[in-house]
C-alpha cells in the first residue's frame, strides 16, 4: 500500500494505492491523524486506487471520521471501487461516511 497526500485549497486529499490490511492500516491511520493533528480536518480519502480493504482499514477510517468531525471537519470518500464499496455498504459505513464518484466532487462538497 502507498499513500499520497495532496492539498486542494483547504481540503487534504489522502490517496490510497493498493490493499489495506491489518499490516498497512496503521499507516493509513497515522497519515490521517497527522493531518487532523495539524488542524487539517477537511479530508478526502481517495480510494480510486484501492482494490481491497480488510476490517482493519475500516477501523482506520472510523477513527479518522470521528476525529475530523469532532474538530469541525469531515472525512469523505472518493472513487471507491465496486468491491470495496460492497464491504463499506455491508458493514454500514455508507450510512456514516459520505462517498463521491471522484476527488473533484468530494473536494467541491466541502463548499470551498
Amino acid at each position, binding site marked *: 500500500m502507498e499513500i499520497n497526500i495532496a492539498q486542494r485549497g483547504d481540503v487534504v486529499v489522502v490517496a490510497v494505492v493498493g490493499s489495506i490490511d*491489518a499490516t498497512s492500516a496503521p499507516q493509513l491511520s497515522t497519515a490521517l491523524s497527522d493531518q487532523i493533528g495539524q488542524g487539517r480536518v477537511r479530508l478526502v480519502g481517495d480510494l480510486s486506487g484501492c482494490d481491497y480493504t480488510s476490517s482493519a482499514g475500516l477501523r482506520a477510517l472510523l477513527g479518522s471520521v470521528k476525529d475530523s468531525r469532532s474538530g469541525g471537519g469531515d472525512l469523505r470518500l472518493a472513487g471507491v471501487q465496486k468491491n470495496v464499496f460492497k464491504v463499506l455498504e455491508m458493514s454500514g459505513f455508507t450510512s456514516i461516511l459520505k462517498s463521491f464518484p471522484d476527488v473533484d466532487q468530494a473536494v467541491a462538497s466541502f463548499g470551498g
Partner: protein
Amino acid sequence: MAGVSETAPGRLLVVDDNEANRDLLVRRLEKHGYVVTTAINGRDALERLAAAPFDVMLLDIMMPELNGYQVLERLRDDPPLAAVRVIMLSALDEVDSVVRCLELGADDYLTKPFNATLLRARIESSLARKRLRDREALHARSLERELEIGREIQAEFLPARLPEIPGWQFAAALRSARQVGGDFYDAFAVDASGRVALAVADVCDKGVGAALFMALYRTMLRVTASRNGGSAQPDPGAMLHLVNDYIATVHGRSNMFATVFFAILDPPTGALVFANGGHEPPLLRRADGALERLLPGGPAVGMIAGASFSSASVQLAPGDALLAYSDGVTEARSDDGSLFGDDRLAALLAAPVGSAAELLARVEGELARHVGAAPASDDVTLLAIRRAG
C-alpha cells in the same frame, strides 16, 4: 528469556591449536575488556559453544580433530549455535580458504599477524551484528507470545459444546489464522424457555486487541440474551442496539466494531428471529433447494452510538438448513490470489444437505481445495444449523 544488553562485555571464543597464538589473542582481547574463552581445536570449540552462549568466535582454519570448515558446517546445521558471529583467523596466503569460509557462513576474517586496530574494529562490527540479531530474535519471540495469548482468549470464549435438541442439528468450526483475529461463534440455551441463541461475529482488525473485544462482545451478547431471549417476543435487534451503544460510548476511543449475526431460535416451532449488524448474510437453504439471504438490518455493532438494528424472522421447516459464516470464508485466497467468493459458497448449497455436519464438511473441504498451501490470512468461522426432516 535472556535479555539483550548493549553494555555487557562481548563474550568471545578464541579457537586455535597454536598455544602461542591463543595466548597473544587472549591478552590483547582481555585488555579491551572482552570476556575471553579459548578452545584448542574444532571439537573443543563446539563443546564450549554448546555449554555457554558466545557472541563472537575467532576461528582458525587448519586444526586437528575438527578444522574450521567442519566447525562452520556444524554451526550451519544447528540453528541455536548459528547465532554466534564468526571471524576467521587466516594466514596471508589463504585467500581461497577464506572465501570458502565466507561461503560457509563466516562473517569476516583477519590475517595473521594481527593488527591491533583492525582486530578491535572487526570484533566490534561483529558484536554489533550479533546484538542486532539478538534484539530481532527477542522481538520475534514476544510477538509470537502475543499471538499465542490472542489464540488462547479466542479458544476460551467459544462454547465447549453445541446444544443437543431432538430434531435439530448444530455444527460449528473456527480455524484461526496465523495472525489471530476476533471471530467467534456461539450457540446456547437462553433460559428454561428452551430457546437457543445463535451468533457468528467478526471483530474488526487482528491481534490481542481484537481477541479482547471478541470476549467482550460475546459476554455482552450472552448476558442480554439470557435476560431477554426468553421473552414472548424476543428482539435480537434491541439486543444488538444495547451492545452497540455500550461499545460505542464506553470504548469509543478504541474505534472497535464487530459485524454480528445474532438470532434466537424457538426449536419447537422452528421460528428464527434474527438481527444482522453488518455481517455477511447467512444463507438459508430451503428443503427444496431455494436459497435465501438473511440481510443486514443495521451497521456493524459498536461503530456509532444510537444506531438501530431491525429484527426479522424466518420459519425453519423440516429439511431447511442455515449456514452462517465470517468473511474469512468468502475472502479466503488461493495460491494465485483469487478469492473463494460468494458465488462459489452459494453454489455449494445447491446439492441437498444431509446434515449440519455434512454441510460444514462440504464447505471446509471445498475451502481447503481452494486455498491449497496458501497461508490463511483471516479466521474462518462456520456455523450450520439444520432442522431434521
